[in-house]
């Protein structure tokens, strides 16, 4: 679906752009819900248009929230809508839960083209259907022009914990092998290339994807999975540092084993960036018992999101709380967290 060929539902056609009234709780708000959100997200709970959704849930739940402000809103490989669904679905799934319900909070900037909102909402609906989650409640606010960047989206998700699942950073133990489900840095470099108008030999696409089906298959193998993490902001380096500190273990990576798409690698090289610090939106890092590594790899590789899954390192009882990488030359170096954003270098 593109913005050009999106067809605006008839009652919304009076307003080609978002106006303040769309968040005012009156008729315009109601029209937006009735003609855009309900048809897209349509399900029993949402159509009741009550103040809150009532969910019938048994057992423990996994519960997570995330807010999406990505600029630009549309980028190669995705848009802010599907990112907002996939991001929270993945966070919920990383605890070993089956994601089921989402809330969606939209902050719209006055002047946002209705067609863009339409495409984003439909993209969210598609992503939710693909992930098998239901959007059960939502909210829309409109801010004055100049007070937002077109659209911000908050999503909150609830997943049903699988019996016996105990997956958290503290469980990493020496001897675990570390697996990534694919190439590192695709999302961050895709955003950077469009944001800054940089052109590389081939277009870099975001890896935005829901990982819950793949993770369920991994868990279904019965493998002893200790930690799952989606390495989003701060990239692989930040995730591994957080886990090393939380579990008080060392992480030793084999630098040459870390998969990086060749265009992403070239772009990083040119800008003086390290793919290990660049964000991913459709990848998982797994810490698993060494004996179960093959099972996990096979399960990941049976999914399109995991075809490049590979072992990148191991957990050690040395250099606790730190991440080190063995360089191709055979020396080791520290892989630290970045202070802020990576900045393109001068030359």
């Amino acid at each position, binding site marked *: 679906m593109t913005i050009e060929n999106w067809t605006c539902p008839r009652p919304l056609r009076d307003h080609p752009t978002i106006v303040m009234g769309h968040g005012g709780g009156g008729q315009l708000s109601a029209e937006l819900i009735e003609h855009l959100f309900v048809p897209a997200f349509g399900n029993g709970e949402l159509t009741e248009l009550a103040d809150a959704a009532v969910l019938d849930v048994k057992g423990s739940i996994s519960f997570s929230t995330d807010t999406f402000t990505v600029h630009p809103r549309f980028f190669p490989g995705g848009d802010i809508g599907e990112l907002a669904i996939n991001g929270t679905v993945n966070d919920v799934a990383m605890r070993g839960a089956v994601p089921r319900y989402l809330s969606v909070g939209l902050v719209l900037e006055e002047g946002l083209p209705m067609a863009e909102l339409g495409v984003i909402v439909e993209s969210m609906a598609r992503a939710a259907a693909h992930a098998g989650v239901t959007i059960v409640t939502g909210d829309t606010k409109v801010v004055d022009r100049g007070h937002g960047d077109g659209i911000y989206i908050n999503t909150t998700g609830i997943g049903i914990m699988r019996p016996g699942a105990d997956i958290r950073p503290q469980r990493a133990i020496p001897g675990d092998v570390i697996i990534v489900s694919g190439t590192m840095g695709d999302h961050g470099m895709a955003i950077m290339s469009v944001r800054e108008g940089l052109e590389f030999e081939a277009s870099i696409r975001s890896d935005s994807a829901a990982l819950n089906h793949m993770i369920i298959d991994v868990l279904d193998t019965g493998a002893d999975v200790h930690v799952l993490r989606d390495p989003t902001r701060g990239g692989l380096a930040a995730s591994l540092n957080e886990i090393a500190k939380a579990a008080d273990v060392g992480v030793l990576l084999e630098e040459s084993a870390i998969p990086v798409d060749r265009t992403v690698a070239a772009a990083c*090289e040119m800008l003086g960036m390290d793919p290990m610090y660049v964000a991913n939106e459709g990848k998982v890092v797994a810490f698993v018992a060494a004996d179960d590594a093959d099972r996990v790899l096979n399960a990941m590789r049976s999914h399109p999101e995991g075809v490049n899954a590979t072992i990148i390192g191991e957990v050690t009882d040395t250099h606790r709380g730190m991440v080190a990488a063995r360089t191709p*030359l055979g*020396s080791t*170096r*520290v892989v630290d967290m970045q202070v802020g954003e990576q*900045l*393109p*270098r*001068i030359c």
Partner: protein
Amino acid sequence: MKYLDEFRDPDLARRLLDDIAEITTKHHVLMEVCGGQTHSIIRNGIDRLLPDDIEMVHGPGCPVCVTPLETIDKALEIASRDGVIFCSFGDMLRVPGSERDLFSVKSTGGDVRIVYSPLDAVQIARDNPDREVVFFGIGFETTAPANAMALYQAKQEDLTNFSMLVSHVLVPPAMRAILDSPTNRVEAFLAAGHVCSVMGYEEYYPIAEQYGTPIVVTGFEPLDLLQGIKMAVLQLEDGRAEVENAYQRAVTREGNLPAQQMLAHVFTTVDRNWRGIGAIPRSGWALGADYEGFDAAERFTVTHIDTVESPLCHAGEVLRGTLKPDQCPAFGKECTPRTPLGATMVSAEGACAAYYLYGRFTELETTP
């Protein structure tokens, strides 16, 4: 990435390391001039794979590190003005001025933008005729041609709302200053490959001859660096002091002549103050007479600059190669990338940042 992988081959690296170990009979101190080389050495652990007798000290070739504090303070002042769009390369934004950095100017309302080329800043000037667009033109000979081109274009188009705050620095005078210093320990240089791709290496012959110091033009990948180190060590062992080129895939003796013509057209050689090092005669480029109208330092009158360096910061000694970053008392304590006291802890090319990011924990064993 095939192209670069060829220059990272572990087996070839091992062979070069063996060669270096074989030819080394005594202690040698080598300086890699460029900060990009420093980062590659530390990131790949090359310093720890070399024989104990080969000591690498790190040179001043980090453009944001040597930009005078006064210039940075001036930039901060200009960037905070209404009506100004201040454009800079990314790694300049976190470099501390006397009181703040460009990020804090941005957060308090200054229109500070990261660009990837000075030509992007020229485009911003075209697109915003009612705003003053200032580009922070710093760096060595490497970045200067693009800056010269931006100024040339702005002049051709009579783009009166574009100006540049220029603080270019030159490598050969800095190498002389290091060799002239009474505390100097450097016996051979790995010259900065990218600088030489622009300037060639003709200008190094008088230095090698006058000081009896080998100079090897060297690239940035592990094999480039090991090849450069090997050639420099061979010269030292043989008692030679010549200029050699270990980066022939990118550098010719005469360099990039059209770029040099453009540089001569736009810039003029001046004395320059280097942050942490001090004044070095004829070590910088400023705008030549034809381009004075584009000088941001002239266009914006900035007074009351009162520069204050941290008394704890030893960046100058690090940049001169007389102190290793981890020998600084503030290293990793008062001074970290999060709370940098000097620019060498900030920049992607700063030696202190390289040590902090990659090399803090040398107890991590290396594999045989």
